[in-house]
């Protein structure tokens, strides 16, 4: 089985996600880009699992864990973004320089 096309797709998706995280101003879109990166990683896990004919399907199971953790993370992330927006009337990442303090 040839896996190059899947790996190239995963790399393209990951790069897309990185670009999104670094360039987007809106916090919600930054979180969305993180999800894209996680999807790329999940794709790679599933592909390698198939390629290696893993008996216990570890890659597929691990990708399920990643999805579950990602769902929880997005929940918390969106809650934080919501609170920031309420307090500052903006979800612009550039204006969030409180980490400097």
């Amino acid at each position, binding site marked *: 089985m040839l896996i190059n096309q899947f790996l190239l797709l995963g790399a393209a998706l990951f790069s897309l996600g*990185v670009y999104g*995280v*670094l*360039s987007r101003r809106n916090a919600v879109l*930054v979180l969305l880009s993180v999800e894209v990166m996680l999807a790329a990683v999940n794709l790679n896990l599933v592909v390698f699992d198939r390629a290696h004919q893993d008996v216990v399907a570890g890659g597929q199971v691990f990708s399920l864990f990643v999805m579950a953790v990602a769902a929880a993370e997005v929940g918390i992330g969106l809650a934080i973004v919501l609170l920031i927006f309420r307090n500052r009337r903006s979800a612009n*990442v*550039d204006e*969030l*320089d*409180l*980490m*400097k*303090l």
Partner: protein
Amino acid sequence: MSNVFTLAVPSLLAAGETKEFTDGGALAEWAWLIPVVPIVATFAIVFFGKRSPLKGWGMAWGSMAFVAVYGIILFFANLNEGITYEGAVAIGDWGADGLGHAFGIEWGWMVDGLSIMMYVVVGVVGVLVFTYAKGYMEGDIRYTWFFASFALFGGGMLVLVSAPNLIQLIVGWELVGVASWLLIGHYWEEHENSSAAIKAFLVNKVADVGLFIGAIIIGLSVGSFRFSAIMEHISHGADHSTLAQFSFWAGVAIFIGAMGKSAQFPLHVWLPDAMAGPTPVSALMHAATMVTAGVYLIGRLFPFYNTPGFADDVRWIIIIIGTLTLFLTGLIALVADDIKKVLAYSTLSQLGYMVVAMGAGAYTAGLFHLFTHAFFKSLLFLGAGSVIHAVHSNNMSDMGGLRKYMPQTYWTFMVGSLALAGIFPLAGFWSKDEILASLQYAGGNYTTAQGGDALANFVLVVAIAGAFVTAFYMTRAVSLTFFGTYKGHGHPHESPKIMTYPLIALASLSAVAGLINMPGITSWFTKALEARFLAPGDHHAEGLVISLAIIGTLAAVGGITAGYFLWFADKGTQQERDKFRIPVLYPLLENKYYIDDFYMNGIIRPIRGPVARAVDWFNGHIIDLALNGAGLVAIKAAKVVYWFDQRGVDGAINASAAAAGGTGGLLRLLQTGRVQQYAFLIVAGTVILVAGFLVF
């Protein structure tokens, strides 16, 4: 007890005499307890005295009672069969001298006639004085401490008299000295009393130098400090003796030591001042401990002074010093107002008799006088203490008429005075008569250059005159104290029983103590003293010398009669009572021959003044110079240190701080707080790493 060894020294007797003595058996082997018990009691009182029911008195009294009982048992055992025993425990080693003599440090105990006699004197007088002291010292602020020092006083004397070698003797000698210092200065709150204590200690120290030098000469030339070795050396004669070459100076040096402790002219000045101590201390000091030590020392080394070729040429010095002491100090007692001072000068005079007897070669007579004197002099001091206790004054001008108020003190004091004056048949009669009798023999001891018979006859005349003076001043003391009218304040009353019973006991002893050595009838004392390693070879009267006994008694009666006419008819004031004043003599006596003034102005001040000035100059010039120099150096050094601190140390610290600040300022630029910038840096770093791994 494997390190205990005893010396079975055969008795060495001069002049072909041989005599066998026993070693005393278990009784002598356990005699080490005699000095140890009072010393242990001292420490027990110091540590537990205040918590004990009798506040330490019980332990002190018990230790003395033990010594008295043991001493009396030994005395009778010795009478039965002469004991010569020497026990020793080796406790150290001094190595050998150049001649191959090995010197060991030994602790030992001597049991022979002489030390047994001293055990009896110290024990019996000690136990009675300690009994008395319980009443006298009642309510004293340092009651417990007093009895600790007092037990040390007795214990030190017992260490001295039990010593079988010169080194231990010096240890005991100094223990007695330090205990006397503690006791004379017992009421140290008054400057006068602490000065008296220091004076006693220092005068004794001057004399101790003589003792040390003498002990060193004897020890090194004999090769041992043991008395038994010294006696054996002497018994071999002077012909091949190393000691004989130095014996004149050794004899003089030892005698100077004896002059200090036994308060011989001109080193007698400490003894009258020692009256500053509590009266029981004076009683013990003048009777049993301290002042008897010098006479004991001469007695212990008697063959050294009495064997031809050795220190026999020192004897004329001894006899002259003794004669001066017995007569000159007796005269001072005539003018003293303080009752204790009268007794103190009387002690000096009686010590003069003992020393004269020793110098005349009368070993038994001198020590017999020591023995009897111990009883009546302690009695007189305790009686004086009882009077002082009642009148609250030492001065006889505050007393008078006490006969009616204090009958027991009066009667016992009378017995003591008559015994001291030498009235038949009390103790003083026998011992004084024996000294006079032995002086008759003494003439042959001296060469013509040393005075010969003339010296001996002169001394005999002075001794008889001394007997007159003794009776004279004692009559004065008794008249002024107990007769006439009372001139003090308040109502005097008899002392409590704990004080009068010892007086009665001592009065009985003063009455009968002379009977143990009646010449020709009972010679128990002579026999008891004969037990020693080397026989003294002295002269002692075989029978009573009737002529001398009569002359001596007449002198005493004459003194009493003269005193009666002068002082018995008591007048009101001091001036009236002392109307009998000879112009030159009286001021001379009242100022104690100006000896104290001479010591102060002639010796102490001329030394003290220049020494003080020299010390001041040294302090002002040398020490201050050194101090100022040190100060200047310190200032210079401080300036260098300051510069280094400011420029060097502070510079380094500031520079490192500035460097840290600058670095922080640069690093702060990276800290933008923008999440995306951080994320970009992370990604960029990852890309660089991955690229690096791929390339390399």
